[in-house]
């Protein structure tokens, strides 16, 4: 995977929000209204103080103002609460869109490319990386707009009250984003580094824990713990260097906010004393002076909040970079394009599987695996593929399955593009999901009856196991804390194939590493399937399986010939 450019990641993040603009706008609107309520609150507070302290009005006569003040506060709280709700809704929708995109990409990439990645890493992208987008949409994005709108509103009011005080605010305000940009540019890159390091470190930790038994067997747990501590500590030292710089941005913001408040307070104080003889200072009253002071921190607050949410942006950019790298890795269109290109050619015979001068090179490899390969398999035949490991047996099966598309040439399965019609696939690992036997079989045949499921399980010799469970096919597959053996899992997969009644069944080393009982059941099952007129293509070294085949082909170094 090559890292996509930051610009593209940002564009991708913006595009994700495009369909949910209403929610972002709603969050910004409510945030703005809460900001206006805040301004009103400060006006009322300053007014009450002025009337009481300067005008000497009794508190009993100020009750109206107090009541309006309390109502304003309640309104402010209402809008604050609403803002959170709307922003959270927005983020929820965006995450759904992102997950949909990734899944669409998986489908385009296909099982071979997927099989080369760790399932955990892919799941992490789909779950955790998408979750990492949450803060960006729920917090950062609306706040980015609010940090412009609300300060401008306050600035306008302060300008009207005392333009010189507004100038102080204005002078400090543009400097803040400027400084933040300067510091942030460095910090952002470092932040991503931090994100990478932390995921690498937790990967290291997980890996050590996963291999704990091995470490224990060799008596190396102590040294592994030491290594973990050392790497972790080295990471701390490196990261702290980064953070010392990253935190400068918040310090700059803090500094300008503090200094601006101090300058305004002193300016107003001197103005009220009449020491300042120029500008609008002589018109200051306690009301205007106090109001300006109360508004000054509110002027900076949205920006401070934004800087707190900066890590949300960094997290989203970090996660977005990885997601986008994945999305770019196998452009969603390649496979479709490849198969569409070959689609208009001859349709091929409905009773044959044909490979017509097929060439194939694995992505990233220079040497082609197959060059001008021609092959025909008749419907109903059982064909065994043998040859040394790495000779191309699996690749040939992947091509027949449509998991890989040829660079040139044409493959037709009973007149159709490979993979167009459903077929049976049995890999070297069986596949089962958390759930009951019935769940596992209905995964590929959702409408199967209980009777059919039971029969399919019996055919692969899992009947006894199911009978021994309390709820039959409705008992969990991995009961009692122990899962199925490798052989049993593969038989479960085979039961799916029985149940679904496919015309074509492709099997990659169906008996490799199996105990003899499972082996016998699988041999028997394949024999039955073959007798039922199914077309079987399987790779194997196994002698008994070879005898089952109508044809044995040797696949070696990209050549396919009759054994």
């Amino acid at each position: 995977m090559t890292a996509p450019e930051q610009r593209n990641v940002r564009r991708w993040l913006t595009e994700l929000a495009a369909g949910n603009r209403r929610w972002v706008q709603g969050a910004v609107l409510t945030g703005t209204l809460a900001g206006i309520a805040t301004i009103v609150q400060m006006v009322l507070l300053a007014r009450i103080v002025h009337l009481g302290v300067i005008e000497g009005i009794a508190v009993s006569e100020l009750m109206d103002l107090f009541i309006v003040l309390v109502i304003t506060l309640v309104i402010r709280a209402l809008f604050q609460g609403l803002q959170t709700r709307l922003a959270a809704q927005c983020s929820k929708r965006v995450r759904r869109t992102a997950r949909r995109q990734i899944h669409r990409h998986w489908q385009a990439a296909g099982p071979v490319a997927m099989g080369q990645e760790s399932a955990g890493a892919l799941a992490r992208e789909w779950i955790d990386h998408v979750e990492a987008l949450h803060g960006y949409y729920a917090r950062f994005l609306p706040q980015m707009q609010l940090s412009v709108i609300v300060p401008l509103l306050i600035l306008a009011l302060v300008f009207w009250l005392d333009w010189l005080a507004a100038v102080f605010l204005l002078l400090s305000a543009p400097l803040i984003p400027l400084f933040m940009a300067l510091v942030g540019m460095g910090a952002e890159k470092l932040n991503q580094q931090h994100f990478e390091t932390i995921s690498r470190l937790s990967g290291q930790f997980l890996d050590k824990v996963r291999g704990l038994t091995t470490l224990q067997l060799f008596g190396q747990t102590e040294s592994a713990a030491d290594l973990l501590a050392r790497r972790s500590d080295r990471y701390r030292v490196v990261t702290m260097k980064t953070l010392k710089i990253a935190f400068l941005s918040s310090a700059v913001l803090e500094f300008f906010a503090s200094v601006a408040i101090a300058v305004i307070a002193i300016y107003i104080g001197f103005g009220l004393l009449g020491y300042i003889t120029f500008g609008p200072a002589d018109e200051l009253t306690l009301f205007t002076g106090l109001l300006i002071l109360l508004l000054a921190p509110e002027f900076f607050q949205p920006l401070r909040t934004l800087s707190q949410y900066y890590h949300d942006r960094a997290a989203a950019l970090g996660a977005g970079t990885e997601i986008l790298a994945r999305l770019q890795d196998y452009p969603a269109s390649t496979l479709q394009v490849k198969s569409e290109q070959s689609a208009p050619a001859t349709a091929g015979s409905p009773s044959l599987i044909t490979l017509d001068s097929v060439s194939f090179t694995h992505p990233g490899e220079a040497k082609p695996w197959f060059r001008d390969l021609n092959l025909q398999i008749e419907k109903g035949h059982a064909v065994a593929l043998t040859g040394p490991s790495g000779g191309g047996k699996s690749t040939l099966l992947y091509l027949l399955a449509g998991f890989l598309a040829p660079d040139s040439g044409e493959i037709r399965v009973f007149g159709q593009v490979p993979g167009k019609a459903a077929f049976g696939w049995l890999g070297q690992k069986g596949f089962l999901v958390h759930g009951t036997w019935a769940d596992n079989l209905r995964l590929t045949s959702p409408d199967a009856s209980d009777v059919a499921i039971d029969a399919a399980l019996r055919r692969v010799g899992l009947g006894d196991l199911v009978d021994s469970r309390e709820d039959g096919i409705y008992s969990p597959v991995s009961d009692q804390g122990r899962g199925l053996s490798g052989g049993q899992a593969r038989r479960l997969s085979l039961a799916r194939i029985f149940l679904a009644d496919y015309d074509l069944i492709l099997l990659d080393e169906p008996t490799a590493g199996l105990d003899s009982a499972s082996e016998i059941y699988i041999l028997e099952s394949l024999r039955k399937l073959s007798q039922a007129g199914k077309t079987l293509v399987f790779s194997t070294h196994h002698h008994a399986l070879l005898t089952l085949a109508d044809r044995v082909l040797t696949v070696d170094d990209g050549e396919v010939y009759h054994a």
Partner: protein
Amino acid sequence: MRELAPWLALIFQRPWRLVLGGVLILATLASGIGLLALSGWFITDTAIVGILLAAGTQVAVNLYVPGGGIRFFAVSRTVARYLERVYNHDTVLRLLTDIRVALFHRLAGASRTGQSRLSGAQWLSRLTSDVDALDTIYLRVIAPAALAGVITLLVALLAWVLFSGAVALGLLAITTLAFVLATVAVYVRTREPSYRQADRQEELRTAVVEHIEGFAELRAAGRTGRHGAWLLRQAHQMNSEQVEVDSKVGWHQAISHLLINLCAVFALWAGYGLYETGAISGPVLVLLPIAILGLAEVYSMLPDAFGKLGSTVSSAARLNRDATPAGEQGKAEIPAPADDHLALVAQDIAVRYDGFAPILTHFDLTLSRGERIGILGRSGSGKSSLADTLAGLLPASRGELARQPCAYLTQQTALFDDTLRANLILGNPAATDAELWQVLELVELGDRFAREPEQLDTWLGNTGSRLSGGEARRVALARVLLNPAPLVVLDEPFTGLDGDTRSRISKRLERWLEGKSVISLAHGSEALPATDRVIHLE
């Protein structure tokens, strides 16, 4: 909440670091409040004096003390903030190391049943997100909550000194309500969905991993779209629940903020009573409400942290569950056989997992030094469990076992995300490069890695995924062969190897293991290396 206890104990191992970090946060908050409150006092004072001066009255006004104070707070807020952030993040990273290393030690000492409960998918979920959740509990929850309490008390003290005891009590009553709403109430209202959130995510992760592992089969059956849609719905539901939690947190935040504001209004109103009686001056009347408004900053950090506390507790609960220390039996050392000519003596051994029927009973075996035996059994016959027992991973539930130190090749190939060298020297940290190459030659991987640019430092990638199954198996075998232990237990040593490779390696293995005692286990005799005799398990 009890679940957090062991982790809190770990965090509080550095009490002075935490206190100093807390003091820095306090200095930041106090400076911020001081800056505004003093400015408010100053403006009101100058406003009153300004009117007197304008009226021609002679009044002395001290501008230097408040002016200096304002400047001091402006600078101290900045400096304290910066130091606080640097210092506390360093603390968090130290805690991160502490927690990971402690957890690793605890997992290493955990009972086997605890370890075997964990599947790969759950590992990924738990150990990353659960440990992450605990890393930040100090900075997110403990420090802000403690400081909100301290700073509130300080402001109440100020109210007591400047205003009156009654105002201080009123202030405490309202802020306590705000505090409860921002902390405990949020926790109680979001505990369940928040606690469940992590489980849901874990379930979803299991389902996603299954989806990916079964991708080829699902694709063949034309079901990836449907199954993917189902996963999307699950994820969306999970997020919907999270939106509910977020909304609750948002409302609590808004209401606790409202209460802080109301508290300031209360102080202003109550202050007027005192002002009218002449008990306090105008500037002092303004100082307290402004100081109270400043409390909002620290209170605003609380609801979000407490909304996540439920999931933090569930993280801690899961980590505790899986890192339960093993009993004494799990740690018992296996003695060497009394007779010097024997490598292993097993008498009437029974093998079983806790809570299950025995897999194997009345197993006897005597192995002389230098003897090589094969144990054959179909899968499910308890072969691997027997191997685990002989190697000492799974304590025998009955019987006597004595053996020499042993090197054990487990049925599962477990390689580390590390270099080839790091993976191999686990077997023998003292092994030289020449020895490593020698053993690689033996398993026919010498050429394979000699071709790699990094040679012995070739990174084996994600759980060795850049290797084929057979290659990974051979690396694991090589690692065991490097180990100097006099007894070697090999469970299905040749998985994934073709017949020719197998017989070539088998021959060389015979020479390499010259003088060692060997127990090999396999499902069929063709998968066994050379043996002196063979036992069948039924």
